[in-house]
């Protein structure tokens, strides 16, 4: 009697569970609008086929995406590079980890005087951005090219005063990042953020003397908590962002202003 009364309810419940299991797994990912959210939108259909329903939460701030993931409110985020993640973890005592690199918004070296690095003369003048993070990024790129050595090779806040070895006796000029394209004719080499280079009509792919590649420490990554980094849905997300289709999409849509880092 009792059983008879509850049977339909149980049946409804059971079917509910069944559909839930068959339904896609939901993954909430925080991202900044360009290009991160655009890349996520691009992979959304492919992920749906894999059984992962992507819920993209767009943020324009750089703190909340990490806070929300650390608190478990969101599953992952995609907006930052490793140096930022490290300093965030250190400051906020969080344990967010990178699950995979996606793209670099590369920093490039430009010149209107020389065509290749071999032509760089002894005592050449090199212009760098004068703010802490971009200045250090420029120095790290020069170090990567073997032009200088920093006292602490991984110092992400290095200035021209932290150079230990400078075999070419390069002379450094530190100035406002946005002014760099304008003073290009006055220096031998200038290190310029891609956004400013593009605005000044420079093409990072064709015009740069050298540019950060996929090995850049400033590659943008997908991050989640240490505990969840091996979860299937998160791994699927990373895989979906590192396909040839995404590579083509990046190359066609952003025309060199960002480069794939996988």
């Amino acid at each position, binding site marked *: 009697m009792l059983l008879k009364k509850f049977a339909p309810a149980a049946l409804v419940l059971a079917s509910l569970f069944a559909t839930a299991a068959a339904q896609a797994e939901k993954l909430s990912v925080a991202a900044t609008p360009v290009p991160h959210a655009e890349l996520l939108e691009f992979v959304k259909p492919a992920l749906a086929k894999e059984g992962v329903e992507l819920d993209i939460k767009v943020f324009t701030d750089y703190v909340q995406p990490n806070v929300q993931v650390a608190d478990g409110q969101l599953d992952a985020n995609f907006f930052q590079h490793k140096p930022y993640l490290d300093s965030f973890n250190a400051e906020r005592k969080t344990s967010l980890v990178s699950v995979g690199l996606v793209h670099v918004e590369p920093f490039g070296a430009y010149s209107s005087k020389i065509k290749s690095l071999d032509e760089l003369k002894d005592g050449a003048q090199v*212009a760098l951005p*004068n*703010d802490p993070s971009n200045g250090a990024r420029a120095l790290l790129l020069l170090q990567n090219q073997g032009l200088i050595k920093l006292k602490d090779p991984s110092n992400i806040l290095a200035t021209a005063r932290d150079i230990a070895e400078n075999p070419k006796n390069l002379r450094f000029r530190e*100035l*406002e990042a946005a002014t760099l394209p304008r*003073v290009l*004719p*006055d220096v031998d080499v200038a290190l310029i953020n891609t956004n400013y280079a593009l605005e000044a009509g420079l093409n990072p792919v064709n015009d740069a003397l050298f540019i950060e590649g996929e090995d850049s420490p400033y590659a943008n990554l997908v991050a989640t908590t240490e505990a969840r980094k091996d979860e299937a849905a998160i791994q699927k997300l990373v895989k979906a962002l590192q396909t040839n289709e995404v590579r083509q999409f990046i190359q066609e849509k952003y025309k060199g202003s960002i480069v794939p880092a996988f």
Partner: protein
Amino acid sequence: MNLGNIDWPLIGEATVDTLLMTGFSLLFTVIIGLPLGIVLFLTSPRQMLSNTAIYQLLSFIVNVLRSVPFLILLIVMIPLTRVLAGTSLGVEGAIPPLVASAAPFFARLVENVLRELDPGVSEACRAMGANSRQTVLLALLPEAMTGIVAAVIVTAIALVGYSAMSGVIGGGGLGDLALRFGYQRYQTDVMIVTVVILVIMVQVLQVFGDRLVVRLNRK
């Protein structure tokens, strides 16, 4: 605040840069601004060489240069700076925009000093048969000397302030140091030291100028 942490050679270098920028720009500002101020005065209405067309044109140029924010002048002048100074960077690159900004300012001050003089002086000269060149060189300028010296000091202090912005083109100097290390890198001690040096610099300029004015007045 620990003074031991401060990079003193860096501060010394910046102090020298500020002095060089201020000194050279002041020199060129006076060379260009003084004649400009005299011409503005002479061509203005009811003066010896009154000429509305020239006065209006010069006055317009002076006003335009004085209205452009210095930071913008610094950037838009880059191609011209390159021709004048050979580079648009560093201390040399900062001087042409500093002069372009300060010379019109100084010219206006000179014009005002001359306007404040007793018109009887130049009338007496004219009555004695002096031409306008003689009137300016022998009567007006000596009369106006204390006022012009005071204007030079005001301009020099304004230049110390403007030079702080030259960091945009890598001009260096104390203002740039205060901004880059004090503000952007939270090294408050560097900011305090640079500001104290700037205060001392301005103070010295003003005291020196005031004494000079007093001495000239006695003569």
